[in-house]
């Protein structure tokens, strides 16, 4: 049975307004779009103020005066709006970039470099023949794709051409997988809304 809840009706009509974009852009779609953007900006602003108050200003007013220091350093970023004193923003930026870089560099080297190399060193003599085949394909593909990005010389031999072709096909398969998974993510959002329309609003399922 169709819902009698006013809020479900408001949500359902908003959904229809958004779906109307499938037909063509219109004022109803634009109204919902602007409302969503305005709402998101509002939430973001309130959260930022709340965070600033909770972690900086409130402790500072309660006696922990040191907490005002990071707030003041952050506030220096507003000098970006003044042409004469714009250079002041370099100080907070250098602190943020310095700390961020120092902290993420070892982590990045570990997870994206050493970790990935370690993950590619696999046994090809396990008891499971299927696993061995999988590991051989993985190792071969990694080597071929890495070779593909060596641009210092023109591929001249037949083997080089085969390796590059294999690498290109492997990358295309990878990109296709990413694209397909992305479609599934968008589809999940669409299905969730459709489920709401079919079940909660129309009461058909």
């Amino acid at each position, binding site marked *: 049975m169709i819902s009698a809840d006013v809020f479900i009706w408001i949500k359902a009509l908003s959904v229809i307004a958004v779906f109307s974009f*499938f*037909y063509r852009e219109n004022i109803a779609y634009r109204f919902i779009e602007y409302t969503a953007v305005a709402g*998101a900006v509002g*939430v*973001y602003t309130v*959260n*930022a103020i709340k*965070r600033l108050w*909770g*972690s900086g200003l*409130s*402790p500072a007013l309660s006696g922990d005066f040191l907490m005002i220091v990071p707030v003041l350093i952050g506030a220096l970023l507003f000098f970006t709006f003044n042409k004469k004193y714009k250079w002041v923003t370099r100080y907070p930026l250098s602190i*943020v970039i310095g*700390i*961020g870089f120092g*902290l*993420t560099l070892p*982590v*990045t080297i*570990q*997870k*994206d470099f050493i*970790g*990935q190399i*370690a*993950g590619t060193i696999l046994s090809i003599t396990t008891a499971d023949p299927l696993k061995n085949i999988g590991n051989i394909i993985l190792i071969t593909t990694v080597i071929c794709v890495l070779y593909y990005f060596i641009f210092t010389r023109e591929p001249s031999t037949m083997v080089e051409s085969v390796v590059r072709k294999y690498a290109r096909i492997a990358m295309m398969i*990878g990109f296709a*997988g*990413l694209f397909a*998974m*992305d*479609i*599934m*993510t968008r*589809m*999940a*959002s*669409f*299905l*969730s*809304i*459709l*489920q709401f*329309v*079919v*079940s909660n609003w129309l009461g*058909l*399922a």
Partner: protein
Amino acid sequence: MKEEITPDIWTRLYDIDHRIVYLITIIACAGVMIQPIGLPVKISPNTKTIYELIEAMPSGSLVHTDMIPEPANIADIGYGSADMISHLFRKGARIVFTTGVGTHGQSATPYGYDTILGWADLTGKKYGEDYVYLGFLGDSELAYATFARDPKGFGTTDYYGTPIDELPIMKDIKSYDDFYITACSHSGPELAGIIVPLYKKPFVTFTQSANVLTYLPYVPQLITAVAGGIRQAAEYELLLKKPSYGASAIDAQSIAALVVILFVLGGNIAYIVKRGEVEK
């Protein structure tokens, strides 16, 4: 007089109006929602690993759950995450929720937490004792590192302004070592990169389908297991023997995928046929 040429089926398919594609997709998906067909679901190793890790967890264990879903991907991430959180609670876990690094980390506070906990089973669970929400940590790895070093001293209050010292769950936390597992919603290598090398905790995450392939290279060195999307939410519900949204939506998603494949195939065949005709 000019003779009117009737377009053949391939030309019609090639020039199909995109609105017809949308309409067919909507009708196909809605039809399956009204009349489910019950397609079989095979449980994948990653989903099983998450389930078994939580199943083996001692009752009363502390769990850190960082969640960064946003409105655009909540449907893909949320249901699986809610299933995982329900499972954690069923096994007697005490959970510390945070919202962390992410493009929309701050704007997603407390959206992801509110939505996912709204879908999870919280029967008999009390805020402050069984779970707590500390809010947004900060939009950089620095925030994660600071939180991991001192989860209790990171902030003075929870998200709702209650002082940390007044929350019973926080009394048992001295360092990140007190957590048994990190079970996240959408958070991935950024957090795992900070937590796992230092604290050697199992790290599992439920993310969106689009992210599964980008997280997989970190499995198992950094991330113990990654699951994502409606598909793996359905798998998790099967393992829990509690079918919910994932199980009901998987039919529709399979049909939607089938419709997309058929249109891609049809479009390509029409293109090849038309190209052949032009070459002739």
